[in-house]
């Protein structure tokens, strides 16, 4: 599904290398987790994959189902099935959450040559999915992320993901700042989306989330590379021992 090969990325504005030869492959249907200390480049990886400005790829590449991701505009990547649940979801004053969702859903459908959803169809769908995430009508009405609590913002990201039905979901610290109940809601939402044709790349600091969303593979990232990959037990090890030993061992 997602294949990242020897990816080197620097900041466009300054001479700072952030990703230094990162390679990773997430096959269809699998859930991979990335753990790593702050500043190791996890968010940068998620932004580069989804096409944010400000980064320069100096070497290597990334493909989504064989297609060169880095060649596409952000909206083309979205239409191709890539989704990023932001670590810091962006506020858009004055734009109703529902309008935003519907605009996004229909933009993607249009880009793929599919029929757009009518208001009625859209409404039915969004209500059902919002209910599962305990997002009430009030929150659908409010401007996108404006005045949302941390937990509301994260649930809202998952609602977008559920509505857009991407094939490759990247979640950047979706669990940070969530209380136990919200974490359960979010994980249930993600688990409901799991299927053979959909993959996940879950960036997290905590083993907690991975108890709910069982990963197939756990990668440890440090200083712009993957330094170790393994099974779910790797996450347990991080939880108990921290990164120190692992990183030392990887050199």
């Amino acid at each position: 599904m997602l294949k990242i090969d020897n990816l080197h990325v620097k900041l466009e504005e300054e001479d700072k290398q952030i990703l230094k030869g990162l390679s990773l492959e997430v096959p269809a249907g699998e859930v991979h987790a990335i753990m790593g200390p702050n500043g190791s480049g996890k968010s940068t990886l998620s932004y580069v994959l989804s096409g944010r400005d400000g980064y320069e790829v100096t070497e290597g590449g990334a493909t989504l189902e064989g297609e060169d991701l880095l060649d596409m505009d952000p909206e083309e990547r979205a239409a191709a099935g890539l989704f990023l649940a932001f670590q810091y979801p962006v506020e858009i004053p004055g734009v109703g959450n529902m309008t935003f969702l519907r605009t996004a859903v229909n933009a993607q459908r249009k880009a793929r040559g599919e029929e757009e959803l009518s208001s009625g169809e859209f409404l039915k769908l969004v209500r059902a999915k919002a209910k599962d995430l305990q997002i009430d009508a009030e929150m659908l009405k409010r401007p996108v992320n404006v005045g949302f609590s941390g937990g509301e913002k994260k649930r809202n990201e998952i609602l977008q993901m559920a509505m857009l039905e991407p094939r490759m979901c990247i979640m950047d610290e979706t669990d940070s700042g969530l209380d136990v109940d919200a974490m359960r809601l979010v994980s249930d939402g993600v688990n409901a989306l799991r299927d053979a044709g959909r993959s996940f790349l879950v960036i997290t600091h905590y083993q907690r989330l991975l108890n709910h969303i069982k990963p197939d593979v756990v990668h440890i990232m440090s200083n712009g590379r993957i330094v170790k990959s393994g099974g779910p037990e790797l996450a347990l090890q991080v939880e108990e021992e921290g990164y120190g030993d692992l990183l030392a061992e990887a050199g």
Partner: protein
Amino acid sequence: MTEPTDLDVREGVDRETVETVQNMGSYKYGWDTEIEMEYAPKGVNEDIVRLISEKNNEPEWMTEWRLEAYRRWVTMNEPKWAMLNYPEIDFQDQYYYARPKSMEEKPKSLDEVDPKLLATYEKLGIPLKEQMILAGVEGADEAPAEGRKVAVDAVFDSVSVGTTFKDELAKAGVIFCSISEAIREHPELVKKYLGSVVPQSDNFFATLNSAVFSDGSFVYVPPGVTCPMELSTYFRINAENTGQFERTLIIADKGSYVSYLEGCTAPQRDTNQLHAAVVEIVILEDAEVKYSTVQNWFPGDENGKGGIYNFVTKRADCREARAKVMWTQVETGSAITWKYPSCILRGDESQGEFYSIAIANNWQQADTGTKMVHLGKNTRSRIVSKGISAGQAQNTYRGLVSMHPRASDSRNYTQCDSLLIGDKCGAHTVPYIEVKNTSSRVEHEATTSKVDDDQLFYCRSRGMDEEEAVALVVNGFCREVLQALPMEFAMEAQSLVAISLEGSVG
């Protein structure tokens, strides 16, 4: 347009934005209609003024009124204080009167109107002949939409071509007709109120308008009457090199209410066309008028060629106690906009509101704002202005808030936000504030920001292309004003926001 559902109710106005961006060309109304026109000779002089008056079958007093204005105008100079840059206008190189030939014999009913003319209006989305029931969705969550009727007066170049729903309005006692008809049929009202808000001598363009206005709309709502439907006028300039000088007079008698919508379009031409309108509103005790404009005159092409020069004087006089006026305008068109819808708050406890979106793209220049003149005690005013500049455009908000010595305990709140798209455009805020008593308060807030890259990226990462993303973010920026518009206008307005920003990114 699809049927409104409760989704639209909740979401308010930014619904159609996205479809629109992709479905439409850059200026939707840029075609012209091939209709045989009858012109008065080029230029303006006393004979032309007389001719216009004669064509409208006006009584002597009206002809004299015009001539008086004309004689004053020739002594006046064009104002130069606005932040606008345009070549000298040759006022003798314009036609001051043009009308479709088929109108020579005034049609007795809409059936006699040139079908091409009606087709034009249909293209503009105004079904003149049909009962025009537009989607009006208010409040209720799940409730089915209530149909709303809108009476339309349409002005094509110099003449009014038809007013719908006249009979139904007459039953309520409301007079809604062209101003030329009002001059003939209701001279006592016209004599009493014409020029009483915007006097002949007011300013260069208003004075010119007083001399040569050819048509426009007239509204009178009698005491205690809530106008049973929205009233609407559509202005279209079709003929080339023709100035349009329409005159609108609205009188809301004691305790009455009316909501009035004005829309404007013009074909795409590479010469500039002149538009100098005057709107006067008289509001008596406890009456309320809402006046909404969606103005999308042709703004000129992306190189700044062509477009309408728009010099408009709009003023409401809250003449008696507790009179209330609300101006809402969406300005997306015109090469040059010079326009300051104003409120004279003369009656005690009268209220004025001004909500404005002004978008300037490419080489457009807009100098617009409002004047709130507080004369009565306990008067209130509120100004919400959203200016958006893109391309090489210059957008100026110019506002006056004045509290006179007698206007004790009055309040004004002004909020003035500017949004810049790209770095070649400009936004300017010029607020004038005069407070001449100690008990009144004026609050002014102003912000200028650039369209936010993180917001655009967030939208794009969800699948919207750059233009959709900009349109969405800008509609959000304007929301407070869009919500002040009647629903059917709000839809049109948000589409316009999207269209007028086309090509502003990338």
